[in-house]
């Protein structure tokens, strides 16, 4: 149940990555990249209706790990990728959606900060706290 959460910018570079199990860092990054491809596919396919809680459930990416990757894309092509370990009772769709909503709200708050330059890594403590709480909770 390691939950990894990442915020990917429009240009597909990460703005924020946080994962609970430290060793997943790399794996997670790899997974995120993989998921990005899928996300892009979906985006191109969907056309307009891409925002909203786009959820990308990749299913079992890695057999052993059995985790799922969820995706959420915003209007500005900012992607929130969340990896959840399936060992933890699969979170319901609603839960995932609510988590993404919270993520999105926090991200918006970060954006509102005039001291934050879009494109910078997110260093907001509030955002960190929120993400941490989510990860802990999810776990």
């Amino acid at each position, binding site marked *: 149940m390691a939950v990894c959460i990442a915020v990917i910018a429009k240009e597909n570079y990460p703005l924020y990555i946080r994962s609970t199990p430290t060793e997943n860092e790399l794996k997670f990054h790899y997974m995120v990249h993989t998921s990005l491809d899928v996300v892009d596919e979906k985006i191109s396919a969907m056309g307009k209706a891409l925002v909203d809680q786009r959820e990308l459930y990749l299913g079992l990416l890695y057999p052993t790990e059995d985790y799922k990757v969820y995706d959420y894309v915003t209007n500005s092509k900012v992607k929130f990728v969340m990896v959840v370990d399936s060992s933890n009772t699969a979170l319901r769709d609603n839960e995932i959606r609510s988590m993404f909503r919270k993520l999105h709200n926090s991200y*918006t*708050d*970060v954006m*509102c*900060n*005039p*001291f*934050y330059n879009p494109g910078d890594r997110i*260093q*907001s*403590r*509030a955002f960190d*706290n929120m993400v941490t709480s989510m990860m802990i909770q999810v776990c």
Partner: protein
Amino acid sequence: MELCGATRLGYFGRSQFYIALKLVAVAQSGFPLRVESINTVKDLPLPRFVASKNEQESRHAASYSSDSESQGSYSGVIPPPPGRGQVKKGPGSHDAVQPRPSADQQEPASPVVSPQQSPPASPHTWRKHNRHPSGGNSERPLTGPGPFWSPFGDAQSGSSAGDAVWSGHSPPPPQENWVSFADTPPTSTLLTMHPASVQDQTTVRTVASATTANEIRRQSSSCDDPWKITDEQRQYYINQFTTIQPDLNGFIPGSAAKEFFTKSKLPILELSHIWELSDFDKDGALTLDEFCAAFHLVVARKNGYDLPEKLPESLMPKLIDLEDSADVGDQPGEVGYSGSPAEAPPSKSPSMPSLNQTWPELNQSSEDTAIVHPVPIRMTPSKIHMQEMELKRTSSDHTNPTSPLLVKTSDLSEESKINSSVKFPSGNTVADGYSSSDSFPSDPEQIGSNVTRQRSHSGASPDNTAPPPPPPRPQPSHSRSSSLDMNRTFAVTTGQQQAGVVAHPPAVPPRPQPSQAPGPSVHRPVDADGLITHTSTSPQQIPEQPNFADFSQFEVFAASNVTEEQDNEAEKHPDVLPAEKASDPAGSLRVAQTDGKIEEKTAASVPANVSKGTTPLAPPPKPVRRRLKSEDELRPDVDEHTQKTGVLAAVLASQPSIPRSVGKDKKAIQASIRRNKETNTVLARLNSELQQQLKDVLEERISLEVQLEQLRPFSHL
């Protein structure tokens, strides 16, 4: 030393701290000493104040000129370094003040500052010291603060700088302070003041860097609410605010604020964090409160305070008006907020009463409507009559109760949807009873009306509006009225049962009972037959449910003797039934009966039949109605739900019979339930009867056909 003392005071109060910082700058020479003392002082902020005073004085004297040495002495007493920040301000302010005519504002600020800080006293004393020295060393203090402030940008003129810094600093004053810190060794001294880390700031200058400021942890602040904004500070902030945004009630856009705070030379990350903390409503703009909070945080940070993770209460924007959020929560404590704009107490969104009672009502009504008795129109005339009557009753109920019922239902639903629903059931049952009773003279129209009424009631209680005006209807609301005259009213009940029971269609046979009778009457006739059984039951049930009461009344009317108490329908049915059976004219009889019943009911049902008394069939209706009305009146009382009652009242008004008190809640619900049950039974009976009739008819048909055939051959032949 003086500076140290001053700074100490500053710890106490932010402004003082700042002043102190300034002083530090001023007394750079003396800083080292001060710092040390400050450091020591930090440990005991409180006591320091006291001592600081002395120290301050001495410090002032010394520092201004060259007191660094004396600092050491202060150590013991040094007011909590935290005050440093404030001290700086204090001194700074003092200095500024003193040298300038604006001393006043400084002083008040510093004194204010000090109080806030743990050792408020010291600040004061400190200030005084400052003054004194300022008097003598006015230059120094000025210069001191000056350097602090001036670096920020404005004229750095020593003396004027201080002042200018203070007041004329457009650039964020805090920056000045900060700058001063950075620039001047004083900052370092201040830092040292911080008991926490500053201790080593020997070289004030070196410390000058913001880091020192950060290090300076104001102990004093730890004692007191370190985040309080002194009046002085606040004034300063407000001034700064106005330089950016003249309108104090307006916002400072993010970009402007960014520039402003960037001048403080704090790391962007910290500024970002400060922004997050202070922009309470996350709108990307700063209100005056938010701005003050942000400014304060910047200053504190500059002075070495760590940024909190969460916005301190004292910094919560008081302008709740805007956000109505809990920002206000903190205002109370803030002393320093004297200047804070009226903090609109967090007028949290007025707790929406969230009364959507209407909704429930609607729901109920819908229910009622849905429930409307099916009004099984009996084949048998009597039944038909009954049905009609019921319908009428129900219809009347509907009409009357409908609205009220509906309303009630909604109300009820709000409060207790059950009630309404119950009512209906009860009403329905009753209604059924009525329908079955047929006896009700209620004309088919009545039945229809009853039905309709029931339907309307259905909202409240699925009155079986079906055939006979759903006696149940009265239940929902009837409980109120019905209780009174349940019996009587079929007609009344209708009115009464408004809530649950559709005001028994006053149209009910008794028709005479316009409002209630219809319902009850209808019920009665219909119910009469079927109700007989029902009535028996219903009455019993009715009593339970005020709604039923209405029905019972109906029945009463119909049967003119239904147990009034019992649910309207129940009562009505029995009454109706017997009455109807006895006399098909049922209506008329019923009317009579109802009248009698109504009266009886009124007497009896008044208390019991809450709502149902509504349908005092025809004649009874009147009396019943009265009862209903009384019931209604009672009901409204009973119904606590004002809404419903209101609705009911309205309904009642329309249907005198169905007082359905929306508020009947449980009672009504129960009554309506009973009524519905009764109605159900009645309807069931009706159904069975009808089926039998059907069979009979079929048989007849068959026989006729046979005969025909027999004849035919003959004919052929």
